[in-house]
């Protein structure tokens, strides 16, 4: 009767994706393989959490609609590929722009009204996520959509072959692309934040909004641009991920909790924390899954994150400030 079922059970796709790596007994190649798989997870986590690292980490906006921006990015990629027959890589700028524009609209209509009220922001963005899911479902129906990965990114790179020539340790080109993409975006974002005057403005606004205003920074505009940029990054993540799994309205939910865990683990002040957080969570997930099983790995990692929040709510990699 109640319509929870459709989006109720969140099975992270990357966990399903690594099921093929089940291993018999303890052998080093399969552990290495699993670690490489973990690197793949790290790439996805980094990509999905980077946008949140900006909207929550830097701007302190509790954005529960982050997963839906990822979903929107995936749909932008789908639309561009379906109707204009674009290569997936070429759809990425459109996904970025599209989600950034929707993000800007969100900032103006919702987020701006709720600055300084975190719990209200949380509720409003949850409402927004339901609305976005509903609207996408209205337009595209709940049917699964598929986005094709570019042919030159298919296949595996085998690092170690056994005697008969079958690869023992391999990593797919697409996963390598995801990691490269994530690292490049992280680098770009860090450059924007720490190397440009715009980034200095953002940091000034987050450190002391009133003072920045006094010094002539247009804080409203800075907020708008930063939030849109964070949403745009989520859109890129969505476009890149869209080739890994089918595209559907509730897909964003899969990434929301994980992205949150990454940002909270890594620490909220420095963007490097996102990298550290995704590395820790991704690898821990992969290694524990190798030793035990996938769902248990997820439970253990989530429990570890809860314990971490309890003792270090500011994250692992934040320098303690003197109050």
């Amino acid at each position, binding site marked *: *009767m109640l319509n929870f079922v459709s989006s109720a059970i969140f099975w992270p796709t990357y966990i399903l994706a690594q099921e093929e790596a089940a291993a018999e007994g303890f052998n080093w190649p399969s552990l290495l393989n699993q670690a490489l798989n973990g690197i793949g997870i790290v790439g996805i986590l980094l990509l999905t959490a980077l946008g949140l690292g900006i909207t929550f980490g830097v701007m302190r906006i509790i954005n529960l609609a982050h997963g839906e921006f990822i979903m929107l990015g995936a749909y932008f990629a789908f639309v561009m590929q379906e109707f204009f027959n674009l290569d997936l890589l070429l759809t990425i700028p459109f996904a970025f722009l599209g989600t950034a524009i929707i993000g800007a609209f969100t900032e103006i209509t919702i987020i701006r009204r709720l600055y300084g009220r975190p*719990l209200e922001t949380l509720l409003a963005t*949850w409402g927004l996520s339901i609305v976005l899911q509903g609207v996408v479902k209205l337009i595209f129906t709940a049917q699964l959509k598929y986005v094709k990965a570019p042919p030159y990114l298919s296949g595996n790179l085998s690092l170690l072959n056994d005697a008969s020539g079958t690869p023992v340790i391999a990593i797919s080109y697409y996963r390598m692309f995801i990691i490269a993409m994530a690292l490049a975006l992280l680098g770009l974002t860090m450059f924007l934040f720490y190397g440009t005057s715009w980034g200095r403005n953002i940091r000034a606004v987050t450190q002391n909004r009133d003072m920045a205003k006094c010094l002539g920074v247009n804080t409203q505009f800075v907020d708008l641009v930063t939030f849109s940029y964070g949403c745009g990054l989520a859109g890129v993540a969505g476009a890149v991920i869209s080739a890994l799994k089918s595209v559907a309205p509730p897909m964003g939910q899969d990434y929301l*909790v994980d992205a949150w865990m990454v940002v909270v683990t890594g620490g909220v002040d420095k963007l490097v924390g996102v990298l550290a957080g995704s590395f820790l969570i991704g690898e821990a997930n992969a290694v524990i899954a190798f030793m035990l099983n996938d769902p248990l790995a*997820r439970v253990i990692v989530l429990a570890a994150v809860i314990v971490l929040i*309890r003792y270090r709510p500011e994250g692992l990699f934040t320098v303690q400030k003197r109050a």
Partner: protein
Amino acid sequence: MTDSVMGLRQSTVPTKLLLIGGIGLLIFIILPFVLGDFQISLLAKLLLFGSLAISLDLVWGFTGILSFAHGVFFTLGGYAMAYYLKLNLSAANNTYGGELPDFMVWNGLEVLPWFIAPLKYFPIAVIAMIAVPALFAFIIGTFIFRSKVSGVYITIITLAISSALTTFFVSLQAYTGGTNGITDVSDLSFFGTPIPLTGIYFIIVAFTALVLGFSFWLTQSNFGLILRSINENEKRIEYLGYDVARFKIFIWTLSAAMAGIAGGLFVPLNKFISPVYLAVAFGTQVVIWVAIGGRGTLVGPLIAAVLLGQIQNSAEKVTQDWQLVVGVLLLVVVLFIPNGLMSLLPKQLSLSELTKPGPVSRESSASSGFVNAQVFDWATPCSQLIHVCAKTSVNLVKSTLSLFNINASGKTGRAKNSSISSIRRKRKR
């Protein structure tokens, strides 16, 4: 603080409130004779969701802890009851004719696990239904609230708990039935005779009334005043010497127990329980009921849960996109009606107005007393019953140290202002 006398509100019976409550209860008692079976079972289900929303309101609306994990407590209680009903399925109705529930047979279990076996007995199942969620909440609460973790992080922790437990329950297929949960349970029976739907409905109506009444009484007591003060200014309450964490843990555990009972009553009605109710989506649904109905109003969340459910039921025949409407409604409420739909009601119908006990002279309503509410001091709320003694003690209190200025109307806003102003007055001295 040690020589304080029990501080008491002037509590006269709020006649208007009792009248409205009585009429409401009467309507719910008459309804089953008017409506069909489907409507009754829907209404009963929505009343349980309403009770769940009330239990969240205690924690969120009054104490300020936003939790997405109340669906978890609900479901834990539900599983306890579901095991009981499943284990009492007669051998003829069981798919495999044996003692063992069908999902355990499918998953290759041969003996009933020791931790599930005792749930065959009704008293143990009932205790588990209350104790398991409460204990779980107590452990989490002790863990979270005795730390510097603040508002939003607590919410994220509850999100993680809900997500982790969903995965956990889905993965333990042999013990929990996996994604399907526990289905095809037996009817709840009373000494061998199965209770009909109307019977279950009446049990649920009674439970809901009890939850509402109890929550109301609790929040109107001194204990409730402390809770509201924690919501308004936690630091100040801490500096005044109250153990804030203990209050939080207590109300958190209590609310989890209430959610657990609601979940337990849900199973005989719904005939199944599954990890769907553990998931974040259900947890947020509860939050949405409270937000839309109005935080800190108790009745609001109940009405919101029942109304939204009813509207959804009729809307789903027309459109499949009911969730979209809920999302828009939530956005509108958060942005434009932050106190929920209850705040749109005319003043005369608001809770604070209704709780006003008949005409009380200004003199006695302005009585100030030290709030002597300890977490495990059950005497404090109970003392309202012996308010004959109160009059004398209030007079005593008047002359003693006054920290809080409690007025008999129980108005949040006024209580807050007056408590702050009384503290200011004290400082000036």
